[in-house]
């Protein structure tokens, strides 16, 4: 059900051209092809979909960047399959790239050179494909961050969060598989490392590598196997899950940022037809166009510069693409003394912790977060209004701390690049990052949480005292003061609309029953209470109408002579503290 909000009608009357909906469309008829289709499929019943409303915000387009990059990858990837030969068979190169003429290499590498140098426009398609793949994962990462920090994962969207989590994992695996296909020196080194960390798996390691590689490293099966995973298996799952992901966005209707007129029971935005079709469709072409622009002027993965893969060769500055950095970085940071042999078997936790354990662990934590938070809050309501990140300080701080941890690992992967660019010792960088991995998240947590609370205080300040108008008034006694202008109700609503989540100890009633006997609490429930305290102990309540009324009183007081004004001011400030800045210390 859609309605035009009040106030818009007046504008429409003034300017027919802009929002015309009725004049010549008084008696609309379906075009014949639609009638044809409707007679066979009943499509006209579905046209209500075009009235679906989408809210407008730039951060909602981060997911679209990922979606469109995926489509670009599918299009350009299909082109690449026409020429790429997924074979590790040995050939002597005889193409047009002189520095490799006569060099022995795999067919996969030779065909990649062929695409780059001998197919007209092939290099453009290759670079488009690779840049779009990076953009795909950048888009996903930012989209995940947006959803996390705004609390969009809350009920009823937990399932879609989990689907998104799986999608992001698959995207990284898909990227790694694609990166490995050209069989150049850099990607071969990556496969070598993969072989190495797979064989570190306790009990099954050797079997795992022999089954995946079809024998000893390198064998001649890994490229064809990665190829079919890259072009069929993973894209099929990706596209399938992605379709569900998008369907659920339609099904739940999009979340929206809080604002005047926006409630938990509505969506305010633009209809799919025509505005959102033009905007979203146009944005696809913008993403495609920007990717083409980048692919035209910035080179990516020049495989010819790395040379064909040879297990005895390696290049300085061997890194995977960025989405695998955290895992490779963990492999660089974990110290060798962790390995030990006992009862005739070898444990290499410094290898499997950084790879086989870390990779799934990151995504399991990510996928589980909504359920953990819901358990802590006990909040079973549906949430369609997003949180401003500052209004959920601990969630925001936890997210930022997790990102800082991830970044430390990621930066560890480029320790050699940093060493040479900044003339530092690679050993010092490694040791420093080992320490930072543990310390930085704590610092980031504390700083971000304080920052959020301060921003909330600033919001309160703004609501209570308004904006500085720049007008100086003089009282009859000769005192000067600046007039503060109160926020209008629409601007104010942004700052006062939220609810400060309270810890369970406040919402769940007293810890003692009516006879003063302490209620028994199980260990799990006790942990939940503690977590709830951790999350919501420090909080800042939004301004209430009565507080604002008190502040107005204060505002008038500014014009009063010295002593009286100060007294009122102080009393109001005391009220501020007790009303707004609650820190429940019950230890």
């Amino acid at each position, binding site marked *: 059900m*859609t309605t035009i*909000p009040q*106030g*818009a009608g007046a*504008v*429409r009357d003034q*300017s027919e051209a*802009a*929002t015309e909906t009725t004049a010549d469309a008084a008696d609309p008829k379906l075009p014949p092809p639609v009638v044809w289709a409707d007679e066979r499929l009943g499509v006209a019943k579905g046209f209500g979909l075009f009235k679906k409303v989408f809210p407008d915000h730039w951060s909602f387009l981060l997911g679209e960047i990922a979606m469109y990059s995926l489509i670009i990858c599918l299009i350009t990837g299909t082109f690449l399959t026409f020429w790429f030969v997924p074979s590790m*068979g040995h050939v002597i190169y005889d193409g047009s790239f002189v520095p490799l003429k006569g060099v*022995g290499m795999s067919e996969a590498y030779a065909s990649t050179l062929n695409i780059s140098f001998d197919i007209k426009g092939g290099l*453009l398609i290759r*670079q488009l494909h690779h840049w779009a793949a990076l953009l795909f994962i950048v888009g996903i990462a930012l989209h995940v961050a947006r959803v996390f920090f705004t609390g969009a994962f809350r009920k*009823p969207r937990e399932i879609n969060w989990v689907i998104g989590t799986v999608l992001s994992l698959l995207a990284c695996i898909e990227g790694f598989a694609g990166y490995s296909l050209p069989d150049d020196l850099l990607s071969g080194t990556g496969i*070598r490392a993969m072989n190495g960390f797979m*064989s*570190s798996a306790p009990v099954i*390691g050797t079997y795992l590598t*022999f089954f995946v590689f*079809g*024998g*000893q490293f*390198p*064998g001649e099966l890994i490229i064809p196997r990665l190829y079919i995973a890259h072009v069929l298996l993973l894209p099929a799952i990706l596209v399938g899950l992605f379709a569900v992901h998008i369907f659920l966005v339609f099904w739940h209707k999009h979340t929206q940022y809080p604002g005047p*007129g926006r409630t*938990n029971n509505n969506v*305010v935005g633009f209809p799919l037809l*025509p505005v*959102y079709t033009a*905007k979203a469709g*146009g*944005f696809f*072409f*913008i993403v495609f*166009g920007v990717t*083409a*622009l980048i692919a*035209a*002027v910035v080179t990516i993965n020049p495989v010819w510069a790395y040379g064909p893969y*040879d*297990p*005895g060769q*390696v290049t300085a500055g*061997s890194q995977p693409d960025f989405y695998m950095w955290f895992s490779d970085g963990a492999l660089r940071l*974990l110290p*060798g003394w962790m*390995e030990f*042999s006992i009862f005739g078997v*070898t444990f290499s936790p410094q290898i499997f912790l950084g790879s086989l354990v870390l990779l799934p662990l990151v995504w399991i934590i990510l996928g589980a977060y909504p359920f953990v938070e819901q358990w802590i*809050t*006990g*909040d079973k309501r549906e949430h*369609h209004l997003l949180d401003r990140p500052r209004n959920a300080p601990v969630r925001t701080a936890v997210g930022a701390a997790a990102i800082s941890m991830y970044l430390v690992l990621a930066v560890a992967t480029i320790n*050699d690049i940093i060493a040479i660019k900044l003339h530092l010792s690679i050993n010092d960088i*490694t040791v420093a990052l080992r320490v930072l991995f543990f310390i930085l998240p704590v610092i980031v947590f504390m700083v971000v949480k304080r920052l959020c609370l301060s921003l909330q205080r600033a919001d309160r300040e703004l609501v209570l005292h308004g904006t500085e108008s720049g007008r100086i008034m003089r009282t009859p006694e000769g005192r000067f003061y600046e007039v503060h202008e109160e926020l209008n109700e*629409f601007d104010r609503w942004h700052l006062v609309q939220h609810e400060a989540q309270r810890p*369970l100890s406040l*919402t769940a*009633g007293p810890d003692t029953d009516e006879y003063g006997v302490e209620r028994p609490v199980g260990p799990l429930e006790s942990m939940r209470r503690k977590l709830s305290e951790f999350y919501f102990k420090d909080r800042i309540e939004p301004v*209430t109408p009565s507080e604002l009324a008190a502040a107005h009183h204060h505002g008038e007081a500014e014009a009063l002579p010295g002593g009286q004004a100060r007294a009122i001011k102080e009393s109001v400030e005391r009220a501020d503290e007790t009303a707004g800045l609650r820190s429940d210390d019950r230890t």
Partner: protein
Amino acid sequence: MSEDQIAVHDPHAKPATYVEPEAADRFENPGLPPHRPRRADVDDDAAKRAERQVTTLFGLSILGTLGFIVAYFLVDPELRASVLVIGYVNLYHVILGLTLAMSLLGIGLGAVHWAKTIMPDTEVVEERHLQASDEEARNEAAGVLSQGYRSAQLHRRPMLLLTAGGALGLFALPLALQVAGGLGPLPGDALEHTVWRKGMRLMIDPSGTPITPEMVSQGSVIHVLPEGFVGESSHGEDGPSALEIMEAKANSSVLLVRLNPEQIKSQKQRDWGVDGIVAYSKICTHVGCPVALYERQTHHLLCPCHQSTFDMTDDCKVIFGPAKRPLPQLPITVEDGYLVAVDDFAEPIGPSYWERG
């Protein structure tokens, strides 16, 4: 005491439920702010200008597309030139890319600009409803389920459910077994051996020249492969296949250096070399990259992948980084003037694995 408390714990009991904060003293949502008209809404000239901008953008897109087609056929694909900022490039590639970008961006920017300036910008409100179905719908669903269950006679014949479940649970196993069983050979003892054999000569990679002790001067490093797997000797009729060569490179690559015998700390290391010339596996004991960075002054070997550092004067023990075990030494001697292997490595080379012990 707490056990029976847990037993009766009800997740929906009071402590777990969320209590709404009192809603009394709160501001009210003021509703949508009044619509602010755009320039194109009130000024016909502005609307015309917007229209012109959009059509220009679409026109540029058409030009870009045509430009791409023309360039595709008319520009020399080998044309290379130095371009400001981006450096030396294949100009054909850049022209194709830029025209393609122009074609796409023209459409994208045009469509968005159209939506922003000419299409209505009054916000529309759509209502939401709870995701959960109402009681009536749930009851109906329960009825449907129950009826299906009963009409399939599952309530009276539970064996049907059990066996059907069992069969469905197991049917995929043969397929999974076929895949798992067919993927690769069992490892056996493949990881414990390399292609090095007694009397096999050390050859320079990639030229395939055999090495005399005199060729290994102080401070030099030679990248070595076993005889028959590099250079001319690998190309013969009965030579190894390309696959065997790759596998030999992956497990039998060796670094040869000459150290001052006095600097060598272990007797075993001296005994397995020739006058300070020692040979070590080049495959890292961490995850298997070639540990190829030899620092001539410190005699340290550094792996460029994860920075494991090995001390060559101390039997290649790890002095930094994520590797644990020393690099295995290849015992060498001189035969007919050339350096040859005495035997295979005494221990498995390369990354750690479970059965290695």
